[in-house]
């Protein structure tokens, strides 16, 4: 094992003893363990039931009002889904008829899953929509179907489709040609002046993907209030009353909206009842009395909640899950976060506990079952999206802690059990985030520490006050005040999302429960590669990898650092400008062709005002952003050029151009097969570039409390966070900055040449947004914290700091205290987010060499936890390369 440690970055001593496992080990209940074993055996699978019936109904209603067609199509999809109930389940229902089931949604986009020789596919490739796919690696193990085998066809390197369904998939997809959101959006985005520049930007992977048709919803917090309070029949009654009030009056769209919600709910009701019937069928053939009784109970429960509000905690949890899946089935969605579930369900749970209907053991079993169900969620999308951005994850973030409506701590006993089951039943979903507040009880925080130490990468630690400040700054003009800001939660992996307090009436007592009250809070300009933009500045607008001109000549001689910085601002602004306009058109196509109904029905105040979320029916609508990738790589590169070219004049910019093109005399990452800097191999002419490479690596690096480079970081942040407000979203609201890398630092690094900080061609960028580049943070965690907080984090929707700590460093109760103090120190300095891998990096190396032995190993990437074997190699190499802290 010792040879592994040679290629790992350490802070502190190198571990010499055997590879150390994580500290806390709890076993899941037998029921959850069986379900998880079944999950481990299951492959990602797609079926055509839903898209077939959706498309069939859509065609039948040619000429009808679009939102009605949409509702009828969704209804047809829901009511024809084959119910499948797995033995031992306490919570049931899923996206499709497989355990990890999903399906294509050709009404959004149909080109990427066509055969490579198909004309549609070639057109998509030409327009730059699929370039990111080409440079993405998808995990080779776990549940991914990476290649076609026998009667199963692999799609996007992850999903399996039975050969019997392939012809109908192609036929259905072709029916959406020139009708899908993708195609209609593309048709009209070309009207934007400078559109060709947008295509060049996409081909160069300066921008990762269009959000309008890939993942038009998500990165938001769902709201379960209406089903929990009114039940399906109650919501239908609200809609019927709404129709009576608006029929025939101006603003007639309200009439169609209410009617559409009713139609959609009828579909969901049939879907639930089909499951109830299946539960009774399963009971009828079951020999085991306990299992038979559980099936019968499940059938009764489903029948009840197909119409009525929940009677108890179990009903409420099942209904919550149904609507979660319901939303996921209307669009391709990542990051539909359940939000503060422990607070939403608390009134039901407490009442059951008080009456003796529920106990700790039953609660744990149910919460573990919930973890398994959320982990089963898959999102069918292109390889670039599912691999290059999501790493196969779907980002269902469950938040705990924070504050109540009245400003007191919101942490409760149910959330303690949510943390407990996060330890006992380690799964990627739902990931957990602690909304850290100075008012959070110590016992609660220490339970969070216990869970983080268990090593699954959650909970992440998020600063409640910083998020509230961001939300008040950006949603204040829409009426948000302090009390409502407290209802926020994380949407997706790390997007601060507005919430509202809803009055749940249970037995005559009002409980104010939090829930999301805005649509997707992260759509717009999705992932701009900062190092790649700097590359085009250095080469006067050219992408030197492809030889294509991306931007017109900037006209600067780049003789000063100020000119270089100006050139960067110019190109970055050009990219944001054209991408904002084209994405606005794509999202306009989405809301016109494929309006949200399930999610709209759930979000306050859509039912009150009779408008869907695309028509700004939500309470808050300032939800578009500009996302960055590679912050630290950019800033380190600027620092290197400032020092080596402009101040000390060690090298000319021309010398840097040559060194970048020659990759500092190294082989590329694609040639070495590793995407980590430490594994790169010198080529024959390395000695020519040894000096410039050494001095680039030795230039000041972010993460060491060094004002030289931290001041450049602040320069970037202050400018970026402010400039985004100059761009207007589809809803005519100012945009804001969002800074998470998710997995994009892998594929975006893959297409970027060497950078002036000494990073080599094709290797990953720095992860997160305020993480140090692997191995360059040499002065300990507190120096890293000082660098990371050199700017005000509430200017941005988020910041992201990823750290890796050896398990021995936080061992025992003393280690827990020390660990909490570390996190507290960062929060008190104004840090927004920090998350940890508590792992011995040598174990990760071992897992890379022998993945079959590590099927259940979980790691934290950038805002999400994922099974190691389902990560692409780019991200695996990057996680290994992160600095491992051997002391705090």
């Amino acid at each position: 094992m010792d040879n592994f440690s040679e290629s790992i970055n350490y802070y502190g001593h190198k571990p010499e003893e055997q590879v150390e496992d994580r500290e806390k080990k709890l076993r899941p209940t037998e029921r959850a363990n069986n379900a998880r074993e079944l999950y481990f055996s299951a492959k990602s699978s797609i079926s055509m039931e839903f898209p077939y019936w959706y498309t069939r109904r859509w065609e039948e209603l040619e000429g009808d009002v679009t939102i009605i067609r949409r509702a009828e199509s969704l209804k047809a999809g829901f009511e024809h889904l084959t119910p499948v109930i797995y033995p031992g389940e306490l919570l049931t229902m899923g996206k499709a008829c497989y355990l990890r089931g999903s399906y294509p949604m050709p009404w959004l986009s149909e080109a990427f899953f066509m055969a490579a020789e198909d004309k549609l596919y070639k057109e998509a490739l030409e327009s730059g929509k699929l370039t990111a796919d080409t440079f993405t690696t998808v995990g080779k193990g776990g549940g991914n179907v990476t290649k076609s085998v026998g009667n199963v066809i692999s799609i996007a390197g992850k999903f399996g489709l039975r050969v019997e369904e392939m012809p109908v998939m192609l036929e259905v997809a072709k029916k959406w040609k020139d009708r899908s959101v993708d195609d209609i959006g593309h048709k009209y985005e070309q009207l934007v002046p400078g559109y060709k520049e947008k295509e060049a930007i996409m081909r160069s992977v300066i921008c990762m993907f269009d959000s309008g048709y890939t993942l038009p919803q998500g990165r938001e917090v769902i709201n379960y209030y209406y089903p929990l309070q009114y039940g399906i029949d109650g919501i239908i009654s609200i809609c019927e009353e709404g129709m009576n009030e608006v029929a025939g009056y101006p603003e007639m769209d309200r009439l169609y909206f209410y009617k559409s919600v009713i139609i959609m709910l009828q579909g969901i009701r049939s879907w639930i009842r089909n499951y109830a019937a299946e539960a009774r069928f399963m009971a009828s053939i079951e020999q085991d009395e306990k299992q038979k009784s559980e099936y019968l109970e499940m059938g009764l429960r489903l029948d009840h909640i197909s119409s009525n509000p929940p009677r108890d905690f179990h009903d409420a949890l099942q209904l919550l899950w149904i609507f979660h899946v319901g939303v996921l089935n209307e669009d391709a969605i990542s990051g539909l976060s359940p939000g503060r579930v422990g607070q939403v369900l608390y009134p039901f749970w407490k009442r059951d506990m008080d009456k003796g209907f529920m106990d700790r053991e039953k609660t744990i079993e149910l919460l573990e079952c919930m973890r398994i169900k959320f982990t089963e969620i898959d999102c069918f999308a292109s390889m670039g999206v599912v691999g290059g951005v999501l790493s196969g994850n779907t980002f269902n973030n469950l938040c705990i802690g924070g504050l109540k409506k009245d400003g007191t701590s919101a942490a409760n006993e149910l959330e303690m059990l949510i943390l407990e089951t996060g330890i006992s039943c380690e799964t990627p979903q739902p990931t957990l985030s602690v909304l850290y507040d100075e008012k959070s009880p110590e016992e609660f925080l220490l339970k969070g520490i216990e869970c983080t130490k268990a090593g699954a990468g959650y909970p992440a630690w998020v600063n409640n006050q910083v998020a509230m400040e961001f939300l008040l700054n950006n949603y204040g003009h829409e009426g948000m005040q302090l009390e409502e800001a407290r209802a926020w939660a994380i949407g997706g992996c790390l997007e601060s999302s507005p919430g509202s307090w809803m009055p749940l009436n249970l037995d005559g007592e009002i409980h104010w429960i939090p829930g999301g009250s805005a649509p997707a809070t992260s759509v717009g300009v999705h992932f701009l590669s900062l190092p790649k933009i700097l590359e085009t500045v250095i080469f006067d607008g050219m992408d030197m990898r492809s030889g294509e001109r991306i931007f017109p000549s900037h006209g600067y001689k780049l003789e000063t650092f100020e000119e270089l910085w100006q050139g960067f601002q110019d190109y970055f602004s050009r990219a944001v400008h054209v991408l904002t306009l084209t994405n606005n058109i794509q999202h306009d196509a989405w809301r016109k062709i494929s309006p949200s109904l399930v999610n709209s029905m759930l979000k306050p105040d859509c039912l009150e005002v009779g408008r869907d979320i695309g028509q700004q029916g939500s309470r808050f609508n300032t939800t578009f952003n500009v996302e960055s990738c590679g912050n630290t790589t950019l800033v380190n590169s600027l620092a290197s050029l400032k020092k080596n070219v402009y101040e000390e004049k060690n090298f000319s910019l021309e010398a840097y151009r040559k060194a970048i093109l020659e990759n500092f005399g190294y082989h590329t990452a694609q040639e070495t097969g590793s995407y980590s800097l430490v594994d790169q191999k010198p080529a024959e002419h390395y000695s020519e570039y040894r000096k410039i490479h050494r001095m680039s690596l030795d230039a000041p690096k972010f993460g060491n409390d060094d004002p030289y480079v931290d001041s450049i970081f602040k320069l970037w942040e202050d400018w970026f966070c402010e400039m985004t407000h100059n761009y207007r979203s589809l809803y005519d609201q100012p945009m804001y900055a969002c800074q998470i890398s998710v997995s994009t630092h892998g594929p975006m690094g893959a297409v970027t040449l060497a950078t002036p900080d000494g990073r080599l061609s094709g290797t990953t960028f720095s992860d997160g947004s305020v993480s140090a580049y692997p191995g360059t943070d040499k002065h300990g965690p507190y120096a890293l914290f000082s660098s990371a907080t050199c700017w005000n984090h509430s200017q941005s929707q988020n910041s992201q700091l990823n750290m890796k700590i050896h398990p021995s460093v936080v061992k025992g109760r003393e280690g827990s205290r020390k660990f909490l103090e570390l996190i507290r120190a960062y929060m008190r300095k104004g840090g927004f987010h920090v998350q940890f891998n508590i792992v011995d990096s040598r174990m990760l190396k071992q897992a890379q060499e022998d993945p079959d032995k590590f099927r259940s190993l979980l790691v934290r990437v950038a805002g999400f936890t994922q099974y190691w074997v389902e990560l692409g190699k780019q991200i695996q190499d990057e996680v290994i390369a992160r600095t491992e802290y051997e002391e705090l």
Partner: protein
Amino acid sequence: MNTCTDCKFYLPVDVFKGICKLSKKDILPGDLFCEKAERSPKCKFCSKFTPEKEFLGKCMAITLAYPDMNAASCVDFEWISQN
């Protein structure tokens, strides 16, 4: 030749395998019918389905359909007479 995916006791886990609802054993989609197997409603067992190309056909002579689609919740499904 009927296979396990045509059986009403087939519980699909993924595209490669399933579980027999009766025996609780793992089974493969291509396994042949056992003595306890019963047909599940599918388009290919419906009198209103007309096969055309491989894995494609028409529903009620007009609408695109495919033989292996589950038709348990289709209101127009009618069993073809079994030989």
